């Protein structure tokens, strides 16, 4: 079991609670019903946000502007409607109805084994209205975790989690099996404030990531250079992107390492491309 080791690190825990916190639990019986629906009803999972991911992250909408579950590119939406998928998931629908939140968009998100959402910020393309993201893990495993503020947070199944995705963060499922979360983007209102009032860090499941020594970073950079020299350029890039899930690194550092990898190979265009990608992933601004 991963344990919380934040007792002696007030700065990290303060930063972390702004970014992620656990909320109320649902009952085991209800979780089993939701899990059954999530594993048996959805089909035709949609791959989207491809720039943000390694492959292996797919979603379907439950509440959105069109009612089409395949419409998964989120936008501001003040009056979302139930999709055809949600209509076939009565236990999930009842849960969402009971909460009575001001939903913007609600999705199911599946993350396969060895799949990653790379370090990024969300909501950069949306209005500046106050909004939060809630996660309800339905199916997960110990190697699936969120990284933010230099900590790895394994979101346990069966309880709500509040995430502030305007902070840089990334998600991984290192070893599988698949992870399925219900993700609700909600506008700020009284019901949301009530639900999130007691947001706190959990007793278990949070781990401060180690700081990489210069020698360790050099070793990883060398391995990536060796991979690229043998023709595995994408594997080299992915090996560096994955460092975000193993070390507490400064913001955007893995993108800088990839830029430097390509500069070292004499590929100025690729180096510039990764510099631009860093800006896009962390600010939403395209160069």
């Amino acid at each position, binding site marked *: 079991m991963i344990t919380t080791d934040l007792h002696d690190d007030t700065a990290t825990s303060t930063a972390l609670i702004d970014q992620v916190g656990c909320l109320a639990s649902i009952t085991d019986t209800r979780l089993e019903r939701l899990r059954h629906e999530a594993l048996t009803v959805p089909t035709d999972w949609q791959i989207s946000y491809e720039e943000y991911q390694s492959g292996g992250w797919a979603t379907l909408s439950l509440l959105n502007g069109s009612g089409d579950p395949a419409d998964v590119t989120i936008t501001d939406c003040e009056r979302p409607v139930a999709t055809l998928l949600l209509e076939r998931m009565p236990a999930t629908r009842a849960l969402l109805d009971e909460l009575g939140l001001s939903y913007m968009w609600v999705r199911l998100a599946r993350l396969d084994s060895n799949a990653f959402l790379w370090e990024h910020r969300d909501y950069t393309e949306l209005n500046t209205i106050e909004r939060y993201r809630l996660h309800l893990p339905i199916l997960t*495993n*110990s190697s699936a975790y969120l990284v933010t503020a230099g900590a790895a947070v394994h979101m346990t199944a069966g309880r709500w989690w509040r995430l502030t995705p305007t902070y840089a963060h990334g998600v991984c499922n290192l*070893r599988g099996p698949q992870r399925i979360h219900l993700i609700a983007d909600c506008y700020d209102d009284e019901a949301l404030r009530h639900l999130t009032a007691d947001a706190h860090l959990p007793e278990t499941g949070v781990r401060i990531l180690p700081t990489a020594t210069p020698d360790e970073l050099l070793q990883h950079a060398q391995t990536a250079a060796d*991979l690229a020299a043998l*023709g*595995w350029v994408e594997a080299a890039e992915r090996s560096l992107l994955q460092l975000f899930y193993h070390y507490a690194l400064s913001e955007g550092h893995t993108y800088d390492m990839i830029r430097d990898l390509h500069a070292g190979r004499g590929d100025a265009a690729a180096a510039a491309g990764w510099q631009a990608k860093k800006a896009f992933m962390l600010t939403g601004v395209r160069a």
Partner: protein
Amino acid sequence: MTLPQSRMLAELTTANRPGQLDLLDHIVGLFAVSPAVTHLLVRGSLAYGTSDRLSDVDLVVGVQPSRFSAYAAVLDAVVRVELGAILPGWPDRIVPAMGGLGSVHLLEHQGHLQQLDLYLAPADRIPAIAGLARGVLVYSNSDAAPEQPNPAVEAFVRDRLAVAPSCHELLVEALVLASMLRKRLARRQRMMAYAEYHMLVTAVRSLIRTALQPSRAAYGWYHLDTEIGASSLGRACLDDLATLMDAPSVPTRETLARALEVVITVAHRVAPDTMDDLRLDLDAYLHHMT
């Protein structure tokens, strides 16, 4: 047979295509990206047409001799990053010596544990290996310039094989063997199950000796009881080892599950740092094994 019937049968055949072939396609595409790769040769049941849904993917990777050591150094990283191996690769000490280096990897594929056997060989050895292993060539790099055998490869392979396994490798060996055994039991392959169970017990013995008495790790069973049994920790490990030795020499599913518990208990006792390093890997492994 009418045309529609023929088409339906073709569709059924496609629908029932072993999942390993999709994985094999993916792996061939991945390895062929590297210009250092000269040949890819499928071995085993997928090559012979005798595969089933439990079959390994068994591949010989021919590499330019001048780049052999560089390739060997990053192979595990490629398999981990690109194929999502759930454990580090196990340096295969069962595979016959064919001038290269073998490794066994466990991947999650389509929700199941899938074994991938790789044999990395210098390109000049490929014709002999193809004959010996009755392999099927699935890729050859026509752009690769022919290279002469490189004596440095032989020395590199010899040195690699001479290195005593670490606790990390021995634990992975035991876990891989347990996975192989599960497959043997499902297929009722008693002879192979017997052989692999003996190897598993030996791997656990080596793990204990390597962790507690590294200077005499190569002494095998010799004076094991007196030398390891000198401390309470050692005696607890010997008790665990005796549990494995006293179990049926051809395991059942139940005794294999018990053996796996003993492996993990021993590893916690003698190699806690290794267990900590492999914690997430082990969780994923046990998900598939239990």
